[in-house]
């Protein structure tokens, strides 16, 4: 590959060897989250498990009125966030495609909600109330550990770096709170903890992965998981019944 081509790969487009490119040798598969919002029960166990494991402070008690979401958004003290969207869809609006719809994504680039409704051949069709079916979409959001992570790229201190699992982690012993990563992230994930000065976000439970434990949030997540394609796994769960979270391709 030409130097130019190589550089282009390092900076954009698909980067299949992202862990090697980050200079790690003898590493395992890449870790990441697969989120199946169709079976998320909106229980927020992922939020609590994350806070318990990482000792994240409680960040305020505010009734937002945003359906059952009172965590509002990802941030320095919310590394997992469960979104709730109440939606009434008029019958016939989508014609025959009604069974597979994509909810308006809370997130700009559609990495968020893709919900399969009634995808699993229950014998008889669900009853549709005349006004249209009410849906309550719940989906758990988290740092995407991007292949081309803007936060990481711009970090001047190397506090943000790519680990041997291909994840993007803030090293809290290095971060000097310059804040550059904050506006760099296109998903509004990472943020500064004001009273501390440093920035925080999901580490994909770097410490746990290191000893073969699955991320705290994924472990708690109550709904089922198994290996079938559509039902892959719940929220933060792994792709198959394996113990750690999935290897992202």
């Amino acid at each position, binding site marked *: 590959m030409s130097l130019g081509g190589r550089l282009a790969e390092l900076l954009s487009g698909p980067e299949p060897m992202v862990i090697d490119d980050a200079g790690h040798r003898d590493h395992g598969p890449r870790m990441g989250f697969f989120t199946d919002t169709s079976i998320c029960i909106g229980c927020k166990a992922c939020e609590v498990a994350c806070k318990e494991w990482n000792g994240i402070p409680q960040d305020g008690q505010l009734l937002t009125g945003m359906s059952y979401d009172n965590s509002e958004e990802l941030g320095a003290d919310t590394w997992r966030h469960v979104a709730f969207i109440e*939606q009434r869809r008029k019958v016939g609006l989508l014609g025959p495609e009604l069974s597979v719809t994509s909810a308006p994504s809370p997130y700009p680039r559609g990495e968020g909600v893709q919900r399969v409704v009634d995808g699993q051949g229950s014998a008889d069709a669900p009853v549709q109330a005349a006004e249209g079916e009410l849906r309550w979409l719940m989906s758990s959001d988290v740092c995407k550990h991007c292949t081309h992570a803007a936060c990481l790229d711009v970090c001047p201190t*190397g506090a943000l770096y790519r680990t041997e699992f291909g994840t993007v982690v803030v090293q809290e012993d290095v971060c000097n709170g310059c804040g550059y990563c904050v506006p760099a992230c*296109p998903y509004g994930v990472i943020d500064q903890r004001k009273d501390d000065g440093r920035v925080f976000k999901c580490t994909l439970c770097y410490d746990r992965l290191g000893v073969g434990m699955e991320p705290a949030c994924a472990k708690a997540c109550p709904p089922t998981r198994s290996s079938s394609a559509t039902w892959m796994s719940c929220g933060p769960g792994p792709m198959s019944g394996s113990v750690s979270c999935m290897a992202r391709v």
Partner: protein
Amino acid sequence: MAVATGFQRRRGRRRGEAEVVPPPQFTSYYGRPILKKPTWAALDIAGYFFLGGLAGASSGLAAGAELTGRPGLARASKVGALGAASLALVGLIHDLGKPSRFLNMLRVFKPTSPMSVGSWLLAAYGPAAGVAAVTSVTGTFPRTGRAATLAAAAVGSGVAAYTAALISDTAVPAWHGGYREMPFVFVGSAASAAGGLGLLTSSDRESAPARRLAAWGAVLELSSLRLMEHRLGSAAEPMRQGSGGRLLKAAEVLTVAGALSTALPGRRRRLWAGLGGAALLAGSACTRFGIFEAGVASAEDPKYTVVPQRERLSQREQAGAVPG
């Protein structure tokens, strides 16, 4: 029943407030920001942009002045550069969440990070500008001083320009979208500031380069700003509204006035030059603060993220590309 959309939600309202759990036609999740707005304090960071630009361009002006035999202008510019650079550094460190870890800026050298590159530039620039200023004031080590002056001038142009790359390399719509013009805006703004400082501090006899620099900078700044606003489309809105808009308006007035006043002939020429220099400095500062504020405003309102995205998407769709 009023439909609450992202566009209707304004800062004055309580978070997420609407008449019902809002229906789904929003631009973003309950109209909330998609991005995190910068954590930076305007005074520290916009101030830093301004001072850094002033310093870098002043070093260039100083070198020019020195090489063309204008010691007064050179000395003033060197001192100004050092002063501005020092103040800039104070702002920078002050803004850090962990100021004690300032030196971590030199822990890695990251070509992908404008801030990292800038830190290394500053690391090189600071000593050079310092030596240049000190030797110039004390008159000692002229040769070292000359070398430092040239070095500071060379690195200084980088220092003046990199902050443009720094803010463009974020997801903030008003900054990111202007990535092509931003360096010209910043360099122009730096030049007009340095020229302004030069005009303010130099004698009439030596002020010609400063005048030229100021004029050139002002033209560059204002024209690229125009171009940028045009190209940004709807994301330029915060550059016309709110505090960002007011600051940029002021910047335009001050810069134009400053540039024109320096060209005024006659008995009061010296006075006009001084006033014009001050206006140029203020104009440059307003530009940086204006762009800073506009950026923050564009990050706070999700429409600046979503609408341009949709525009791009529909353009692509019209062009027959597969929707992403």
